[in-house]
């Protein structure tokens, strides 16, 4: 049964939140793979994963970050940022 984009985005948001608690960073590709693993091939495809990520970012719940590779994280103050 296909999931809605919102459901997938919610799932991904939860993954990002949990990962961040243990200082772990997830890549967009990781999130899609996790979603497919959780909901099965018939629940999510790669395109839906992509749309869910777009939704996450446009809603402001997640931001892209870069440390030698691009990740999705909860918005937070930059460690290196100057006030």
């Amino acid at each position, binding site marked *: 049964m296909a999931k809605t984009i919102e459901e997938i985005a919610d799932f991904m948001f939860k993954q990002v939140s949990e990962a961040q608690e243990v*200082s772990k960073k997830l890549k967009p590709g990781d999130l899609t793979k996790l979603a497919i693993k959780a909901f099965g091939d018939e629940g999510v495809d790669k395109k839906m994963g992509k749309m869910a990520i777009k939704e996450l970012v446009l809603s402001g719940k997640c931001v892209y970050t870069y440390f030698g590779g691009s990740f999705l994280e909860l918005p937070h103050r930059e460690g290196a940022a100057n006030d």
Partner: protein
Amino acid sequence: DRITDIGPPDFKEYLPPAVKKNYGQWKYHEILEAGVLVHVAESGDKLYTVRCGSPRLVSTTSILFYTEIADKYCDGFLRFTSRHNVEFLTTEFDNVAKIKAEMTEYGNPVGGTGPSITSIVHTQGWVHCHSAATDASGVVKAVMDDLFEYFNEMKLPAKCRIALACCLNMCGAVHCSDIAILGIHTAYPRIDHENLNKLCEIPNISASCPTAAIRPATVDGKPSVELIEEQCMYCANCFTVCPAMPLADPVADGISLWVGGKVSNARSEPKFSKLAVPFIPNNPPRWPEVTSAIRKMVEVWAENARPYERMGEWIDRVGWPRFFKLTGFEFSKMHIDDFKYAGLSFKRSAQITH
């Protein structure tokens, strides 16, 4: 109504009329003098190009000056090259001398065509980069000042492409240059055990090390990493994924020089640059040891190579022993490869010069 994903402007709107008219219909070209080309179209149209050196780091003030020149002589069009030069295209031969005069006067000399040294492709260095092992613009300025005669004259055996990257990340992908200037660290990363776990993911750091020199460890009760120093070759890949492992050091940072690479498929196949000088300490503002080593390489090549022979092609013909002999550069254990494909770099033949 936020505009996104529109991509770049359509280049067709930015093409000068002569280019639009003769698009894909060019017949041949000639180099009229250093920095000046003429392209002749099947239609008989002639398009003159004046190529001007640029410092790459350009102020809007200078860009606006370029637009003035382009408005005056080039119908309001101009272009840049893949090596940071600015080019003025005109169908009027008379404009060539005028563009040349005005640009030179402003400080952007004309040259860089044919068997010459053109602008150096380079990175940001201390101007902007967090991982630089040297400056970029300053080294480039010092080197090009020294080699200027090879920019505005065409007196070399072939073209010579110089590039600079201020650390091993090689944003400037210098690895296929006739001469590559590469910023290099030679001090181990200093691990900020206090903050490492806050800033970075430990398994990620371990995985980043090409020689597996970094292992998870608990230091003062905090999760952190330890470094097996003998396995570290200062690549700074760990720093790239984790800012809590800086390597930069005023004494241990410096420049390595590499030689004999090429990208073009003409004559020989593309090849990587090879190590010539492993380390020269940073010596701003003019890095005299760097400029003189580069001049040495250019001069021995210019004296000994045959026409059309790129630096690396010349060395391939006469052999690396000759290169080290003529330049006087010291050969050491560091020159002998010990990475993945090391074995193939040994001299596995009895073809030898004496």
